[in-house]
């Protein structure tokens, strides 16, 4: 979010503005203190401290991935989607670590998406209208899209899996920003102790916190807290 539009080899798109505004709205819901201003200005204010680097992907790859994520789980009347949850940021970080085995698949697959978009629609994927982006993704999912190794559906499913992870994971990992994913599906949140009433069929009020806000699991966690109940 802190990447300035000017850093990118293209203009700020309508989608980017919408996305940024969506993040601001989510932050407002979360109770973040915001100055009374326009939605976009609020979003920049809220996002300002969140520095964000590309750790694995190139800027061009990230543009394509951001655009795919934004269509897989779009921002719509049901609330923010994968863009606001920062699923692409999650994927970028994970590709240097636990998902590094997929790095080459992303390099080849994202390039193939752009080539296929150019060939079938005449425009790079990020610049396509949402409806045309959806048409490309539909062709990938059904394996009708060409130019992918081993095939388009494999890459589509890889990105879908990781987009879901990035939208619904613990926010520690760089996705599920502002708990956008957990709020969407009504996850009532992490409770270290759950009573019988909280297992009635109506879920209790949501708690919004990361596992690593608990001192026991944080790296600088309390030794004393961590040892309770454990022998020897």
């Amino acid at each position, binding site marked *: 979010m802190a990447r300035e539009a000017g850093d990118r080899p293209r203009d700020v798109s309508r989608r980017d503005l919408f996305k940024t505004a969506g993040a601001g709205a989510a932050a407002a819901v979360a109770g973040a203190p915001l100055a009374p201003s326009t939605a976009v200005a609020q979003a920049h204010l809220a996002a300002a401290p969140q520095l964000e680097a590309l750790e694995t992907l190139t800027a061009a790859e990230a543009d394509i991935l951001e655009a795919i994520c934004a*269509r*897989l*789980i*779009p921002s*719509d009347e*049901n*609330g923010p*989607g994968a863009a606001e949850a920062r699923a692409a940021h999650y994927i970028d970080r994970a590709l240097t670590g*636990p998902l590094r085995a997929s790095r080459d698949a992303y390099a080849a697959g994202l390039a193939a998406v752009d080539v296929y978009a150019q060939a079938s629609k005449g425009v790079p994927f990020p610049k396509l209208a949402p409806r045309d982006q*959806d048409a490309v*993704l539909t062709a990938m*999912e059904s394996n009708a899209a060409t130019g992918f190794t081993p095939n388009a559906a494999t890459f589509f499913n890889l990105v*879908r*899996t990781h987009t*879901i*992870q990035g*939208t*619904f*994971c*613990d926010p*520690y*990992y760089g996705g*599920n920003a502002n708990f956008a*994913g*957990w709020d*969407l*599906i*009504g*996850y*009532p949140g*992490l*409770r*270290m*102790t*759950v*009573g*019988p009433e*909280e*297992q*009635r*069929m*109506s*879920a209790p009020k949501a708690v919004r916190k990361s*596992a*690593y806000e*608990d001192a*026991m*699991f944080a790296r600088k*966690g309390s030794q004393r807290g*961590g*040892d*309770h*109940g*454990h*022998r*020897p």
Partner: protein
Amino acid sequence: MAIDLKKTDVVIVGLGAVGGVAALPLARAGLDVIGLEAGSWLTPRDFAPDELRNNFRGWPQAAQKANTEIPTHRPNASAPYSPRLPIHPMMNGVGGTSLHYWAQSWRLNPWDFRVVSETTRRYGAARIPKGSTVEDWPFGLEELEPYYDTVEHEVGVSGQAGNIGGTIDPRGNLFEGPRRRGYPMPPLRGTEFTERMATAARKLGWQPFPGPAAVNSQTYDDRPACQYHGYCNRGGCHVSAKNSTAVSTIPKAMETKRLQVVTQAIATSVAVDEKSGRVTGVNYVKGGQEYFQPADVVLLASYTYENVRLLLLSKSHAFPNGLANNGGQVGRHYMSHHTGNPVTALFPFELNNWYGLPAQGAAVDNWADDNFDHSGLDFIGGGNLWVYSDRRPIGAASMSTFGKAPTWGSAWKSFIKQNADRFNVAYLQKTTLPYEDNYLDLDPVAKDPMGFPVTRITADHKDNEKRLGAFVQDKMAQWFMEAGAIAVEKGPTGTMGPSTHAYGGTRMGDNRASNVVNRWGFVHEVPNLGILGASVMGTSGAHNPTLTAQALAWRTAEHLATNWKTIAGG
């Protein structure tokens, strides 16, 4: 050069669910025990409620030895290999997989010990499926009952007894064999959803009951009760309410000062005296250094795949085809528990399955084993139906759309927003039989980082398993619909690839021509080598194997302590 260590009485390879149990009666009997464990100690601080890490990245087991030696699989000897699993939940660490398992702690039912004789008696010998190598166990449930009882109390198991000394308690499992007393703790509590399921089962004329779990329902052995926080599935317990051997039997054994735990020790072979054919100790590698640990008795207690692999890798003049394998039985009679043919239900209301644990649920045993008449059916055996409260966000968002929505985009998003907490997947464990062409051996190509071949599974479900899978699936669908589901989805039979319920390979039996270990768990061909774990089990039953494997381990260890001079003295 290997460093020769001081001789000990007993060396146990693997301090997991079974090795961690066996150490206790041995240490209490005053024997010096060295436990070799490939992993390290983990503490509650390692067990964060983190779905991505625990359930999708396989931490902590992903970083472990076990994950570099996941078996390969092919359905039969002429079929192509299945894609190799990237992650398998079997793990290394003191406590092993009992650190993060589901902790369902079932006894087998009486029929499971006598599949051949009971099937023959009731339906005729022709009903044993063609090609099956199934045998009766060398003893019945009544022989194992005292050991089940001991382990339930030493480890700590919660549950509701259904048959105490022949007196039936309808709150428990009517079909269990007689037990001498109840569980040491009452069962885990139900949820509104699991109670709803139990009510529906009763309406169908079935007898639901809460399942047994090695999870504290109340303070036990100074460890607190379960907190039901929802991250028990492939996660360790942050309050040590899950009774892994790391917090139960291993610390008790260490208190005797007779158990020495050696962590990060990777066993590479069992050494043999070529003249006597007896084992002399275990070779292992720790920190890049080779060691030889001599012992009077060796107990293999790694997982089924690793028990078999270590035997096959331990070649000598006395055992050119692998230790204990002059009879060619190592790796035979293999079974991956049939847990396929799943049923997923969609309800028109929210279930609040977000909290709880896989061991918190409602069970039905009416369709397990031979608890119903098979006269007009084309299979033997059956399945345990299990519905439980367990849901996390990534898994919920990855739910089936029941053909009612696409798999992405706004319509999908709308679907999961409404339904992420409205589905439930039943766990259906079913009778699995051994067959002559289902087996384990060493893979000719795939190797672990040390250059040793990994285990290869050659196995597939047969007609009996497919038929009973479909039968059990229908019963489960009926149950969900009775409880108010608006749709059910039935999954495929699945493969017999690497499983967390892997049986056979070193089967127990009196006949040494068809079994590797005798009725006490000691190798027919090598009297001072014992084998612990589900690899000795000749039938799967329709319930989780861990408690049975632990009861057998206690029994083998107690037999060793009682007959020390005979077994160790040579």
